[in-house]
């Protein structure tokens, strides 16, 4: 069980205070640290941020996800963590990204909020697909997202 491939999808509420710029800086830092750590523990995944919420997908060995999630849980920059999905999977879908990122000015993020969705009503599967589709599209289009992804 411990080395089996799992995927985790969770949502949490942003608690970073201050200006957009401050939030942006914090997120840059979160991404930098998580990419480094994820690469070391063979975790792949993606993070989406829409000012109020984080949505994150992690893929990797059960125990590595467990350990990463515990570290994330203790991060004071978010709260109200809701696990939408934690289950074994056959393959990785985010294998190119140690932590792909979609920011709040992106189209994907708008799909979360503009359509009037309550973020917490979104299913894990939909977040998963949305993240994957947009990261993939961004990469194809050679957008700046790729550089940070």
């Amino acid at each position, binding site marked *: 069980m411990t080395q*089996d491939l799992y995927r985790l999808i969770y949502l949490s509420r942003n608690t970073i205070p201050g200006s957009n710029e401050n939030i942006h800086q914090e997120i840059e830092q979160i991404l930098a640290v998580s990419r480094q750590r994820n690469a070391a523990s063979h975790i792949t995944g993606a993070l989406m941020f829409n000012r109020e919420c984080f949505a994150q997908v992690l893929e990797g060995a059960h125990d590595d996800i*467990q350990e990463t999630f*515990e570290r994330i849980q203790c991060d004071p920059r978010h709260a109200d*963590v809701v696990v939408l999905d934690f289950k074994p999977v056959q393959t990785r879908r985010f294998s190119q990204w140690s932590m792909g990122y979609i920011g709040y000015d992106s189209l994907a993020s708008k799909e979360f909020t503009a359509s009037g969705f309550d973020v917490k009503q979104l299913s894990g599967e939909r977040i998963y697909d949305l993240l994957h589709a947009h990261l993939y599209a961004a990469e194809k289009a050679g957008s700046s997202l790729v550089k940070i992804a």
Partner: protein
Amino acid sequence: MTTARDINTAMDLPAIDSSCGLALIDHAGKMISVNPAFLKLFALPPDVQNKTFAELTGAMNPVATHFLLQAIDGEHGIVSKRTIVIDNKTLTAHIIELNQAQRLMMVESLPASLFPTPEINHPARTPGTASLINRSMLSKHIANWKPDRSGTVTPAMLMIGLDRFKRINETLGHDSGDQLLKFTAQRLLRVIRSDDIVAHFAGDQFAILQINQNQPVAATTMAERIAELLKRPFLVNGQQVNISASIGLAILYQDTESTTDLIKHAELALYDAKHNARGGYRRYEQSLQQSASEQHELEVNLRRALFLQEFTLFYQPQVRMHDKKIVGFEALIRWEKLGAGIISPLRFIPLAEDTREIHEIGQWVLQTACREAATWPENIQIAVNVSPVQFESNNLKQIVQAALAASGLAPQRLELEITEGLLIKNMANALDQLKEILTMGVSVALDDFGTGYSSLNYLSSFPFSKIKIDQSFVHRMHTDKSRTLIKAVIALGSALGIKTLAEGVETEEQFDYLARNGCEEIQGYLISKPVPAEQIPALIS
């Protein structure tokens, strides 16, 4: 400290160039001298003399700090060996007790794969909890505490109990339970300050000792943070697990006078939190000590009350409304203790249920009530309350049978009163037992109706002989809401062919309203308060 200097000079640690980390530490955990390898292994700055590990690493490395605390405090012999994993390095330390004041520590780094994991060494403990100090070490830390000169800081104890942890063990297995404890320990280590001390206090209980912080702010802030943090989901064995923690606080000189009481008071506060603020925290106050002593005394007294014959039964008449004739009595237990007066069943029955004493007490009530009722005219019933706990041993039928046989009372004259609580917990088993009791000819009434779920499902699941409308509705009969409820229950009873009895009737007005709406029986002070057995003949005649 001539000895310290002697050893220090005899072993010039800073000059020892070895891959093995060496440190000479005093009894309080201050570094006397270390070699370069030790600095490297724990990533310490060069000047460590007279500093504790906690002061040196700051919040950066709580795991290592605890490891060292353990090494210093451990009740080991002359030599002991410990292992720890820090930053993917497995460190193994030999600690040699040189004398009372000094320990020499030798630390080596081994590749993780070469070294058995702590889990294998201590199958009963998980790495997370094993890296914490235990209860006796915690006590030592408190005992060694000395007030600092400024007097602005004072120690605080946070006692953290996981809620419903037993349930996790039962439903997901002990392996999951152990993992959960490990992650809990890790979360605690992540939020504490470097000079705080975390202990694995007992099975599902952890303690944090804050030594150098401004109180009560530091303790309450930490309690809130921990309560919130432990509510967040855990991932255990491929699934999501949610728990919560209740926390008790005791702060020296603010809540508690002496260091010796700090742990005890934090535990009392935890007990209070578990019962009155689950998932949150409570601070110790003196009344908790008092109520704990009272509760303990009550428990001790309850254990011998049966033997000392301190229980008696009182009987409250149940009257048929249309001719105001007494048709039965409800047996009510009364506990009168010499010197303590009358103790309310509201206080001692929940305790008796907790301690399982209710089995013996319930049996005594059934026997006594049946024996008493056998002396009454044959058209008068006896109603006896049965606790849900009495169903747990699966022999209630035998107990009822024995009480009937011993007294010679006809089963048709006995009615058991049960509450919805019984059906909520384990409906299928309870119904099975009730049906068996029914076949003996004994009837069953549903008590306190309207106060719980009042589910129609319960009413249709069993042929109850009676629904008892709770007295709180009768007392509030002046409100529209209560009147509507009473009418609805009576209508429900009549539709299902179940008799209704209203409890707590005190006025003619209440009587009239109930009679008008088709209630069949009443019980209450309007007719009579509960009376001792010897007054019954006078009431019946």
